[in-house]
């Protein structure tokens, strides 16, 4: 019994959590003076009064069971907080790094905001820094990707959630996850050695160049299909079954139920999936770096070579890059634009989910 007492004493911090504080015990200062005797476990619970001591309740040896300041605990909590803060520091780091180099970029005489956003030629060698060729290539590749991924991904999601039997589902979902787990450089290889020859074979070698945004875009589309389908599938399966049953009860077919009842109910989740997919496509790098071509090219033809923002960053930084050169600073300016673009898309998708979610519970 004595040994138990000592053990309890050493580990005991507080027995009774303050109701409002929940499990958050180390912070519950108001009950800091609670004293509890080991003997009290056999009898009525000892008072939470700061003055109560072991003698008063049980008559055993005297123990000071008041809450001890635990340096180790606070230290651990502090350390864990720092771990959480690392993520904030990462964001701060990204903003500072991109912002600083971008400011240096715009501080040079060769470039200003007007030229940057107004120019249609990106030739660092001759001091032309117009962002549009890179932006159009990025948008074109992303649009093609979306044209592939959105319909296919949504159809797969509807099939999985509304049509497929449980067994089929359990086989097909892992297959799609495999598709999502393949590294993007492999997709880049696939675009260059499979999709491009396929396109050139179908549409003619004169029309389609070896490096082109179309094949890169299609393959990005294949890459984001699992993302669209699994996020949409989650949204669709979250729609309560009572809605479906009500619809069937009114005589609707499976298709009508899926398209007019379930899909509208899950629309916010599906829209969020679409936006995340667009953001992913814009930020996709290796596929375009391998298959879309090297060299900024202001064109609207998907069958010609063009360089996207990400592709340009990879090509420039892959070479020997000297710090504080205008090339070095320029990729950070492109990076900042990319960061702001994807960040605002991600925030938009989160907002859509919050704002338009249909709650059925």
């Amino acid at each position, binding site marked *: 019994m004595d040994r138990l007492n000592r053990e309890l004493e050493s*580990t005991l*911090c*507080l*027995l009774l959590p303050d109701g409002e504080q929940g499990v*958050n*015990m*180390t912070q519950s200062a108001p009950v800091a003076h609670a004293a509890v005797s080991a003997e009290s476990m056999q009898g009525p619970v000892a008072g939470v009064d700061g003055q109560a001591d072991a003698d008063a309740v049980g008559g055993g040896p005297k123990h000071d069971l008041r809450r001890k300041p635990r340096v180790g605990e606070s230290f651990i*909590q502090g350390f*864990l*907080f720092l*771990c*959480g803060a690392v*993520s*904030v520091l*990462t*964001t701060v780091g*990204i903003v500072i*790094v*991109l912002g600083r180099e971008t400011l240096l970029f715009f501080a040079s005489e060769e470039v200003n905001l007007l030229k940057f956003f107004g120019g249609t030629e990106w030739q660092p060698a001759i001091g032309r820094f117009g962002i549009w060729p890179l932006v159009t290539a990025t948008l074109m590749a992303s649009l093609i990707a979306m044209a592939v991924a959105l319909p*296919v991904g949504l*159809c*797969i999601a509807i*099939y999985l959630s509304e*049509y497929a039997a449980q067994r089929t589902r359990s086989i*097909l979902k892992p*297959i799609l996850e495999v*598709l999502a*787990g*393949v*590294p*993007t*450089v*492999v997709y880049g*290889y*696939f675009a260059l*050695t499979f999709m491009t020859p396929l396109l050139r074979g179908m549409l003619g070698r004169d029309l389609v160049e070896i490096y082109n945004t179309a094949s890169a875009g299609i393959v990005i589309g*294949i890459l984001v299909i*699992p993302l669209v389908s699994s996020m949409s599938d989650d949204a669709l399966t979250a729609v309560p079954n009572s809605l479906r049953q009500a619809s069937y009860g009114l005589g609707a*077919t499976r*298709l*009508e139920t899926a398209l007019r009842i379930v899909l509208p109910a899950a629309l916010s989740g599906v829209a969020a999936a679409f936006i995340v997919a667009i953001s992913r496509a*814009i*930020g996709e*790098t*290796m596929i375009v*770096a391998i298959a879309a071509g090297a060299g900024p090219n202001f064109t609207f033809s998907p069958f010609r070579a063009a360089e996207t923002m*990400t592709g340009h*960053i*990879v090509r420039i*930084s*892959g070479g020997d890059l000297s710090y504080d050169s205008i090339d070095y600073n320029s*990729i*950070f300016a492109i*990076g900042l634009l*990319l960061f702001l673009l*994807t*960040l605002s*898309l991600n*925030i938009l998708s*989160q907002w859509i989910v919050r704002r338009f979610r249909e709650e059925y519970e």
Partner: protein
Amino acid sequence: MMALHQQQAVSEPTGGLMPSGPTYHRQVEARQRRGRIWAIIFQAALVSGVIALCALIFNIVNQSFGYVAIVNNIDPAELAVDGTPLNALPKEQLVEILEANVSAGLMRRYAHDVPFAERSREDIHGLILERVVEPQVQATWGLFDSVFARGSVMAEAEERFPGSDVYFRSWLTTSFISNSQSSEPLRAGVRTAILGSLWVVAITILFSFPIGVGAAIYLEEYAHRERPLNRLIQTNINNLAGVPSIIYGMLGLAIFVRVLEAFTSGAFLGVGDQSTANGRTIISAGMTLGLLILPLIIINGQEAIRAVPSSLRQAGFGLGATHWQVIWHHVLPSAMPGILTGTILAISRAIGETAPLVVVGASTFIALDPSGPFSKFTVLPIQIYQWTSRPQDEFRNLAAAAILVLLILLLTLNASAVLLRNQFNRRQANA
């Protein structure tokens, strides 16, 4: 349009409570037909996704094996001494052959690197193949053509490359895995790249696992949800997960490679190699990827910790354990399978990541094995990227073989994640 039809159908009841009549039946049929058509479309979408995966795998396997046409500078048969073929000659004769065929300067350089007395027979045989026989790949064919159109491949090789050696070659061999990088496609391997990948991933795990799990514990067990600071951390983590990977590469370039150069080049320990002292080292790469997968580990860890029933915590508190004791002895052990599964998935993401490492500055060509966290590096995806970017067919074959190695590595890793989870679950069921 549809609604209008339905109204008409309902508005002309022919008796009883249920709608009926020819119009109604026609419409039901049409609706059901439409349903069947769309069901086929949905299935077709699914099939097309599976086809894409199959095409991807077919394409890579197709490029990894197949016929090659090779022309030798000197036919190995001519090098045979007294009827003994080259690959059966003893070491001394091989050295003589080498001496007779390459310049004295090159011989001196070889002797300077490693004296001939210490070289193995295989090593010298390799040197002869490389320098004297000098096989050159003229053309390669895919597995599909090699198997199903063998005749036309042979005819084409005969016509375009007369006198060439045509044989079936698997680009993925054991020597492909054990050889280091080389500019000769027939002798190139991925050893340096695999070792580089393992080093980088080791650093990534050491960096991001403790921090990621720590942050997950903080957010789930300690943080007040309502406090603005904690909400900021949570929102921030969700947003970081959506930042393109190349941005992390730029962060790594500016912070780890440039600002922390003294640390990441190893100069502060005095261990850095002069040629690598520019911060473009394994440790920079590992930490960049660590930051990249940190949000994934945190989000997964949070989910795993949240899934631990709170009765477990209450029981611990009830026995008088401190907060940290409850976390360390009860919450973490039950959350561990989930945390580990998430971590392994995050690691497989890190292994496949290419773009940030290009930006951080992976070396384009290194034939030396990495010697520690402060050496230059290349990783498998970078190797694949470089081989893919070269115009010659034979490098595409090498890239395909390297992709197979990478995919097998990732598959093993994911399978181990599943096994680990099952193991833990079984142990918990027994306990």
